[in-house]
């Protein structure tokens, strides 16, 4: 993956979370992880997918405090952009 856009990151996060089981329609920006039956372990798996797809290293502690799917998307974008800028 070369340069990534916010839209691509959002699509990757949603696609990955949907592969974990929740109905895609429930994966809205305002939904909390708890509401779609996901938790911190799923976030770790998301980070693993991100590492493979974007060829970066992700410190999962950077996801601390994430509550909603929107938080997760935004945090992921920051992680990818900052890692790429280094």
């Amino acid at each position, binding site marked *: 993956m070369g340069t990534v856009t916010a839209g691509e990151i959002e699509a990757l996060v949603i696609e990955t979370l949907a592969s974990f*089981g929740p109905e895609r329609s429930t994966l809205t920006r305002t939904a909390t992880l708890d509401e779609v039956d996901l938790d911190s372990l799923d976030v770790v798996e998301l980070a693993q997918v991100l590492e493979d797809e974007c060829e970066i290293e992700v410190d999962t502690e950077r996801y601390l405090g994430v509550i909603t799917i929107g938080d997760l998307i935004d945090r992921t974008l920051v992680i990818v952009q900052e890692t790429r800028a280094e």
Partner: protein
Amino acid sequence: VKWGSAPRIVITGVGAVTPLGQGATASFERWLAGESANDGGRFHCPTFDPSQFMTPVEIRRSDRFTQLAVAAADEAVEQAGWNEGLPVARERIGCVVATSIGGLYAQQRELEAFATRGPKRVSPLGIPRLIPNAAAATLSIRYGLHGESFGLSAACASGTQSIGAAMRMFYTDDVDAALVGGTDTYGTDVMRAMLKVMGATSKSGVLRPFDRRRDGFIPGEGSALLALEREEVALGRGAEILGEVVSYSASNDARSLTAPHPDGRGVVQAMGIAIERAAIAAGDIDYINAHGTSTRLNDRIETDAIKEVLGEHALRIPVSSVKGSIGHLGGAAGSVEAVLTLLALRSGVAPPTVGLEEPDDELDLDYVLGEPSPLARAATGERLIGLSNSFGFGGHNATVALAAEPVP
């Protein structure tokens, strides 16, 4: 608490998933009809669909052994009526689910991920999928059971020992109800390979308990759960009582991790004490569900032990093994067989030992060959008593005594 004088523990619900089918009654009826689920030398549950019972998220977070337990437990809980309200306070309901090893598929997947992709690519869901207590914990979470809960491992005696463990929870006044049983995916490719090189499995691909041609067992997958409660609790809420867990005992051969004691001393001990604790005589036993693995040693040693414990009565008590029909379900075997023993007593009929066609001259019990055999006292309508034996690698031996009135 002295066994036998303790509060009576009754069964109000049972559930099973076996290679013969979905549901305890369906499995029992197919066994009664003499069917075998042997699928080219394999015993699996091809029609089992976890999505009938669990959400996609729950399925992804669990290994197959947990999924099988959920299906069996849902059936038991529904039959007991616990789905419409738990019978006692949540804090007073325990859960024990036996398994030989745990989440074998998850374990294999994580070992492969570790070997091929490195330590950073094992799954964060690996542990919740594979730990041997995952099934018990999942059931406690699912039904909101706050009493003691754990997985139990004693190889192929596990399922029976889980019932014993639950009985003690009643006797020590820790619980008033319990969900108990076993679950296992004993027939994975790796398990089959390991059991084969041990020489434990059948070369012919046909499981034939007590037959002169018997040449080993075939591992399979399945689960069974029983909903137990104190008799006064069941009576108080007007629940249908299916039967009673009367007595139990377990032992260890203290000799070998793999071979049974040649004298069957551990089996004699377990069966003998279970009968003694039940305060019954050998002549009171109506049916024996044998461990009957179809190995040369097990079937001879179990036969000799039954004769030693029951004396002259041994030859007139119908004995059958279900393993020719469903395979050897490992840590689930004892719980599945306890459920099937209960259904045999309630039906007043001993199902046949499928696969047994040519009796061994050295084995002379009434092994129920070919057709089902009516239990002698069934016509009286009196309470019938059955024993279910389970033995496991490690020298574990366990016997549970169940009682039930035949249902006309």
